[in-house]
């Protein structure tokens, strides 16, 4: 492969991963030189942002962009080698993560939790980013499992990072639950391989669309997809798999929690969208699942209605449990952790609507709604968790009992949190308004009254906990902790930067919507995905390579 334009585009696909990998190795080698370590880390972050921006422009959004590009690791052809695929959906997700990742990285250089593990903080940070990036880019189901593990290994350490008893306890639960999830994931992957004979996603989509031509019996795939779905729901923190979130989010350093909520959760959402729509939507399986208790029968000729039914229930549970839970917490990160559960419900509702949508138009629209909401959640929740970090490093606490009067103590900090909270609530002209608006619109177009009521209740709960948080920590009399606080200007600058981004997304919403639309179309374009990867059969390969080895 020479450096033809096509060659460059395909090398771009792996560029963000290589940048992070080199940054991880560099920070690991420079473990004992804090300044150089920080410099390499920041350079890695900048390189990552540039690589993602290049993918956005040259592969997805630019005038000559092909829309999708693939990369075969190790020069082994698909479906035998590992395929990396960058399309609209991956690019949208990567962009989200890049924005938050930079903010969290710069924040980390200002507020690095101490102790023995300090020299491993940045390598782990880059490994976390590597896992997330790999999960977004991979076109191979087993490889997706591997990236999940990379992501988890890093987050295990971060949850236990501060080293206290409650952190160790949180990490123990987190590790146990995720090991179990990994086992289930592996079981699902193994089952799919046994059923279809391939794990390359494009090849999988191709075979499932014409099971007869490949001599497959695709029915088990529905159940196996259910297994995978439960694993992704654990990552996304959907009810009934939400229980690990509050303890883990409280235990990890706040700037990492921002990433856990903003980036790794989105990996779960991404995996649900990618597998359900791009890969399994075309599967010819007659689904007929009568539910006598609620007098509904789930029927259809693809696994999607089954996915949709499960997602509806999980999303509804998440919105209610997250919202109600958040109202009663006694610390900032407690509120935001429960709020994350609720917000992911808001992202999952449109995904569920898309699975049951009658026409392609509504399906595209619902996915756009989910993506825009996900973007809003990443920016807003990222900002708010970083604000927890700022408040904690300024006052030494984030409990409501010890806070009060922060608004006058640091007006820019208060303003940033105010913008973030309003974005969660969904006030125009912030990004949250469009997120909520599109989700409501999708529900209205689907003509589902109960879903609209549910969304309304969820929004009211959001207003309740956002107001309560504001009253408890930013208004009222100044406490001793707030009086003695020294607020770090760089940290506040990062928060303000994210707040500006939230406003910018809202004000200049047109291009964001177009990007989300490209992403949604890519998610639904199974044919384009298969064509781009172009998985070969063994006999085709033998023919073209003259045997090979």
């Amino acid at each position, binding site marked *: *492969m020479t450096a033809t334009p096509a060659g460059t585009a395909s090398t771009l696909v792996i560029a963000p991963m290589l940048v992070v990998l080199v940054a*991880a190795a560099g920070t*690991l080698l420079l*473990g004992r030189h804090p300044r150089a370590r920080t410099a390499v880390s920041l350079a890695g972050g900048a390189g990552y942002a540039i690589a993602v921006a290049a993918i956005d422009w040259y592969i997805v959004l630019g005038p000559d962009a092909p829309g999708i590009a693939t990369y075969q690791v190790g020069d082994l052809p698909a479906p035998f080698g590992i395929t990396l695929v960058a399309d609209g959906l991956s690019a949208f997700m990567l962009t989200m993560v890049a924005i938050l990742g930079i903010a969290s990285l710069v924040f980390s250089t200002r507020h690095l939790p101490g102790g023995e593990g300090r020299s491993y903080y940045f390598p782990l940070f880059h490994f976390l980013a590597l896992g997330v990036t790999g999960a977004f880019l991979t076109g191979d189901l087993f490889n997706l499992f591997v990236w999940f593990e990379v992501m988890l290994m890093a987050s295990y350490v971060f949850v236990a990072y501060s080293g206290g008893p409650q952190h160790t306890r949180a990490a123990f639960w987190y590790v146990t639950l995720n090991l179990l999830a990994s086992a289930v994931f592996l079981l699902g992957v193994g089952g799919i391989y046994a059923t279809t004979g391939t794990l390359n996603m494009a090849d999988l989509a191709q075979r499932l669309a014409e099971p007869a031509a490949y001599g497959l019996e695709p029915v088990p795939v529905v159940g196996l997809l259910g297994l995978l779905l439960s694993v992704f729901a654990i990552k996304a923190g959907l009810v009934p798999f939400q229980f690990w979130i509050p303890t883990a989010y409280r235990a990890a350093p706040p700037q990492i929690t921002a990433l856990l909520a903003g980036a790794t959760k989105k990996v779960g959402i991404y995996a649900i969208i990618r597998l359900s729509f791009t890969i399994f939507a075309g599967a010819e399986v007659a689904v007929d699942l009568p539910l006598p208790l609620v007098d509904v029968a789930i029927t259809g000729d693809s696994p999607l209605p089954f996915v949709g039914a499960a997602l509806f229930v999980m999303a509804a549970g998440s919105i209610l449990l997250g919202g109600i839970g958040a109202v009663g917490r006694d610390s900032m990160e407690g509120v935001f952790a429960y709020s994350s559960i609720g917000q992911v419900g808001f992202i999952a509702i449109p995904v569920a609507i898309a699975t049951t949508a009658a026409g392609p138009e509504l399906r595209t629209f619902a996915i756009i709604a989910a993506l825009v909401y996900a973007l809003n959640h990443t920016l807003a929740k990222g900002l708010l968790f970083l604000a927890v970090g700022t408040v904690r490093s300024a006052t030494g606490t984030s409990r409501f009992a010890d806070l009060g009067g922060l608004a006058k103590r640091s007006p820019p900090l208060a303003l940033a949190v105010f913008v973030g909270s309003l974005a969660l609530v969904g006030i125009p002209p912030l990004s949250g308004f469009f997120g909520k608006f599109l989700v409501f619109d999708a529900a209205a177009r689907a003509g589902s009254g109960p879903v609209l009521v549910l969304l309304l209740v969820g929004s009211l709960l959001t207003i309740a906990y956002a107001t309560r948080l504001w009253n408890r920590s930013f208004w009222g009399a100044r406490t001793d902790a707030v009086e003695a606080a020294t607020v770090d200007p760089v940290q506040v600058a990062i928060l303000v930067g994210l707040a500006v981004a939230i406003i910018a997304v809202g004000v200049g919403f047109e291009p964001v919507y177009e990007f989300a639309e490209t992403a949604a179309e890519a998610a639904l374009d199974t044919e384009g995905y298969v064509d781009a990867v172009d998985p070969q059969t063994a006999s085709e390969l033998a023919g073209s390579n003259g045997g090979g080895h």
Partner: protein
Amino acid sequence: MTTVIMRTTARVIVPIILVVAISLFFDGHNLPGGGFIGGVLTTTAFAIVYMGFGLDFLERGILGRDVDPGKEPSRDRVVLAYRRLFAYGFALAVLSGLAPLLFGKPFLTQTFEMLEGVPIYDHLEVASALAFDFGVYCVVVGGLLTILSVVGAE
């Protein structure tokens, strides 16, 4: 565990384990084996030495250094060396993956060369995958030994 039986057994089996580990490591690129399993086996040999002779034996007995017993275990010079091994191994693996990009090939592309007319062996296969495998080997040995000696000391 530091009994005479343990020590005598260790003297016999540690060299055998290390030789098997090395042979598994060299087979890795096209037969069962490789850097990971070679590294795990090497660590087993070290673990047996630790069990038979105590944690300080490597530094005091073999390297002839003084060991300060009151020191934090993770600050030991041997442990620092393990950590460095981990970091260098990881860097080597990354670099070996990046090298094919210089030749216009995708990340992690591997190749091999047959050396003919080598004494005793007649022909030897030199695989580029060996560099990557050696990186993996260093990561596994460095990582596992760090864990073993730090946790073992606690």
